[in-house]
């Protein structure tokens, strides 16, 4: 199948906050936009966040406006479960082949939920980083847009598939659906492919795999979220214990030449924010933050000052050397850089402030992208290959929105 050629169109790869912003800002000037997202729903990483710092407001609020803008804008053609397979051509005239994976649920889906009621099989909930399960036919999360179900066919028995088909009154289940390839002709491509949390199992000394008491900061977002695996309660995975003490391990991978040599920009503020999550549920629990520097600049200083005035929250300047799994919790080992003391702190839960790694890193070469030594996409407006948000550099939401808005203009210029 081939989409009709839209003159002067732009392809935006990635439906997170940067991709959404770039697509909308360009379309609202009048540009035709193809917006593709590899996941079944839009929103990317921010959809997984419980709150934004420093306002502590829900990201789904901002996403809701953006989704409404998309629904209202006919300049945007949106494709979920879709990735770029190949790019050919050159500046001003790219032919991009995209592949849409089968959702096994067609557009007839009304979101009525009758299918999940008859589905007995479950699958790991990737939206919640494997903490918890969903039915084999599912919506990625409550606020997922588009509001359509997805079927994980491999997780289903033939019997269940039959039952699901029978339960759907709208003929929306199509188990024969196949991957669909299509090409788009565009004059520029905005790569807004975002980031993945750095793989904590690569950090040998932090023993992520060896204790259920060690979680990542993104897992903490899901644990604190009302639509997360513990309905926002922050319970320890595995034994559902209410933790009585917490440690934050900053720079878990970042600022480390063996892992990520850059600073991941958001982790300090993310941990500050997560301290507020804990405080809301565990007002007295001791919290220990192990850091190299607290990068809470500018207007974030006030936010940090408030948290640091809490007598039960302790800030220790020192990089964590080791985490020792215990039968109930872990012991965090570090050296206080100011006093020189060795610190051994037993806690019920340790949160690794893992950094961000560009998601496109491993595929970049095959797509002809210019990447730097860390895998970030170098923006090259002259060739119509433009990067935005965390595909370009580690950044927070505000900076990503800035860079995505800039990318939209670069795409418009490329069409001139």
């Amino acid at each position, binding site marked *: 199948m081939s989409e009709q050629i839209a003159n002067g169109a732009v392809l935006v790869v990635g439906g997170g906050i940067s991709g959404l912003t770039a697509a909308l800002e360009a379309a609202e000037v009048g540009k035709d936009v193809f917006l593709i997202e590899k996941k079944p729903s839009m929103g990317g990483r921010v959809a997984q966040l419980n709150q934004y710092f420093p306002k502590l*407001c*829900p990201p789904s609020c901002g996403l809701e*406006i953006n989704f409404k803008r998309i629904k209202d804008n006919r300049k945007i053609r949106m494709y979920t479960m879709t990735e770029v397979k190949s790019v050919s051509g050159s500046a001003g005239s790219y032919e991009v082949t995209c592949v849409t994976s089968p959702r096994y649920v067609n557009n007839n889906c009304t979101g009525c939920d009758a299918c999940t009621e008859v589905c007995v099989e479950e699958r790991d909930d990737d939206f919640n980083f494997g903490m918890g399960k969903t039915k084999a036919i599912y919506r990625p999360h409550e606020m997922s847009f588009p509001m359509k179900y997805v079927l994980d066919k491999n997780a289903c028995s033939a019997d269940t598939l039959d039952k699901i088909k029978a339960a759907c009154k*709208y003929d929306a289940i199509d188990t024969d659906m196949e991957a669909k390839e299509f090409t788009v002709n565009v004059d520029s491509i905005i790569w807004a492919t975002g980031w993945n949390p750095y793989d904590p199992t690569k950090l040998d000394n932090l023993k992520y795999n060896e204790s259920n008491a060690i979680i990542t900061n993104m897992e903490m977002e899901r644990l604190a979220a009302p639509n997360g695996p513990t309905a926002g309660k922050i319970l320890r995975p595995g034994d559902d214990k209410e933790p009585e003490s917490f440690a934050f391990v900053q720079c878990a991978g*970042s600022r480390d030449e063996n892992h990520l*040599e850059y600073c991941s920009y958001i982790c300090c503020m993310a941990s500050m924010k997560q301290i507020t999550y804990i405080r809301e549920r565990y007002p007295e629990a001791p919290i220990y933050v192990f850091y190299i520097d607290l990068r809470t600049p500018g207007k974030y200083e006030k936010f940090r000052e408030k948290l640091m005035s809490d007598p039960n929250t302790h800030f220790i300047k020192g990089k964590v050397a080791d985490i020792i799994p215990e039968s109930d919790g872990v012991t965090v080992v570090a050296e206080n850089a100011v006093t020189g003391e060795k610190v051994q702190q037993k806690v019920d839960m340790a949160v690794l402030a893992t950094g961000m790694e560009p998601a496109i890193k491993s595929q970049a070469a095959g797509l002809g992208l210019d990447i730097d030594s*860390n895998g970030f996409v170098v923006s090259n407006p002259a060739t119509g290959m433009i990067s935005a948000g965390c595909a370009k550099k580690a950044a927070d939401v505000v900076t990503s929105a800035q860079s995505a*808005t800039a990318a939209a*203009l670069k795409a418009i210029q490329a069409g001139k």
Partner: protein
Amino acid sequence: MDKKYGAYICTGCGIGDALDIEALTGAASEHGMEAKTHEALCSAAGREMIEADKSEGVNTFIVCACSRRVMQDEFNFGDDTITVRGNIREQAAWCKEQPTEAKSQETIDEYTNEMGADYVRIACVQAKKTELPEPYKLETTSREILVMGGGLAGLTAAREASKAGYKVTLVEKADVLGGKALGWVKMFPTKAPYEDLEEPTIGALVAEVEGDANITVKTATEVARISGSPGDFNATLKAAGTDSEWDAPFKVGVDTQDKIDKGQMEDPNANFKHYMADNPDGLKIGSVILATGWVPADVSEYEHLGYTDNDKVVTNAEFEKMAKEGKLAGVNSVAFVMSPGGEEHDQDFPYANSVTSMVALKQAKYVRENNADAKAYVLYQHMRTPGNMEMFYKGIQQDDGIFFTKATVTKVEAAGAGCTVTAKDTLLGEDLDLDVDLVVLAAGMVPTTKTAATINLAYRQGPGFLDLDLFDGYADSHFICFPYETRRTGVYTCGGVRKAMPMDEAVDDATGAALKAIQALESADRGVAVHPRSGDLTYPEFFMQRCTQCKRCTEECPFGAIDDDEKGTPKPNPTRCRRCGTCMGACPERIIGFKDYNVDMIGSMIKAVEVPDDDEDKLRILALVCENDAMPALDMAAMRKHSLNSLIRFIPVRCLGSVNMSWIKDAMSSGMDGAILLGCKYGDDYQCHFVKGSEIANKRMDNIGETLGQLGLEPERCAMKQIAITDYDTVPAILDEFVEEILALGPNPFKGF
């Protein structure tokens, strides 16, 4: 448009099981609509049924099915048609209560059917009261962009707008372009491996802008005032540093004007042209980019750092100048002090925002490059080199003449020809007395908007942005999600006026601002709203004959869209408008409305609710719900199979700011027993998409309480709750609690009158 109606009731998604469809079609026929039913209206067959009616001339479709948040495309039958949605799925079928001892299944069925029928009635009335929008068109739209400020951000914005094909006038108050960057010796690294300082590129940028035929550069020039509105601004320019009768007038509110009129105070605007005066010699522009940058912060308040009386203590800006002018001879040791708090706190200087950490790195390098034997000491509480700047930090650390330590600097004193810096809590395991030739303080970058109006608008609400104290003086209104939005439509800011930021970020920021400026004037040209109701074709229309010049609309508009004439008659500026409807909510005469959203329409929808006047159990409570956050939360509650109280009737509104208190009176006079407003959080961390809407609604609700009291009704019958989009699990209980309070008060005593 001659409307011909078609009403449709979907029985799919459990609607047919939960509701008595006959009762629903009956409700439609009360309003003269013969509703057709279908088992899946959104399916191809369902839509074909509707399309068939369209070909018979139906142009106004009443679709009673799911929430309007979903299936928007499916029920869009073309630009020349109207679709009104009645939400009988999420708000009736899916939120049906579970039977309890107090409520039998039979009672619940009956109550839920009444809910469903009311939503059908409401939708029918809405369809009758809505009209197709016609966009507001300016006579002519200017496609030129005014950029204020000729520094890095302003130059970039001008260049980028030009590259996209737009004309630009760039105004700079200095005699030359370039701004602060002209004084830089080197720049931070902007590309991998991010280790080496780079030569300044500002000269090339200035040359590029000066040679650009699309860009008119006006140096030694300032903006006296900007009047008008997006697509049709009128800018008066003047020689920098001069006064002009066209300078932007101060805000004169109702109270001030009263005092002036009574001779109790002088008119501050006596020497200025009236704010509504039109300068025939002004420059016509479509939108504005404010890039007036920053000024170095004053650091004299930190007495222990000795800036005021020790000439060996300088700021980073002053040190840059020394380096630029080659005045580092004899400077063999320099201490860079990052944090001024001593033992009180470990924050950086205000307005530093991590840029000063990087500046210290850069300047430490100058010290070393100037003299290979010189030493630089960077004394920090927290080294702030985010993102790729970490590699810059790491690179600088390789220089064995630059020393870094965390340090609590408690004192800087003159000693010999230099200074002694005293510090505690260092990484050296001991307190520090450091003798250096020079101390450099990492002073912050204060946005120009902190101390002056800067943008100089000739608006009824005054020349500057509003409530910038919430943003430390930075020109912002929606920190986080929508960084470009200010409280003034068509005006976008970038660079240091928005945030202390390094060069590469300023370039991105300026490029983004250029996009927003282009978008604003193109939207004005098309007659559509900009963010957040992007593309909305409606705009507020005023029935002036009934206006009493009360000025509430002009005062309350969060975006300053409404001016007024000498008599006080409002002058709406539709292209400044964000379409929140706050003016409509404010107007006591109910003369402001949109084609598809107005006082009469919502009032009629409220009156369409059937209120039993002889059943003490069947109270009726109105909920006016913000469509941005509270409405999705209610939808989500239903999807999560929560029950919503069946005595409540939900009506979505654009923003709580648009709620006209006459609607509460309408509800009460039609016998409803209570009214609740559900909207976004207000206050310093407001989440209202229109900034002030929920806050204003809350104030109005205080007043309506008094009004009800005068009528002999309990003020407690009205309430407002702040609901976030994620409150879907808690909102049912919040509503139940309110209903309990109303039940305790008993029925509205005026019921049935």
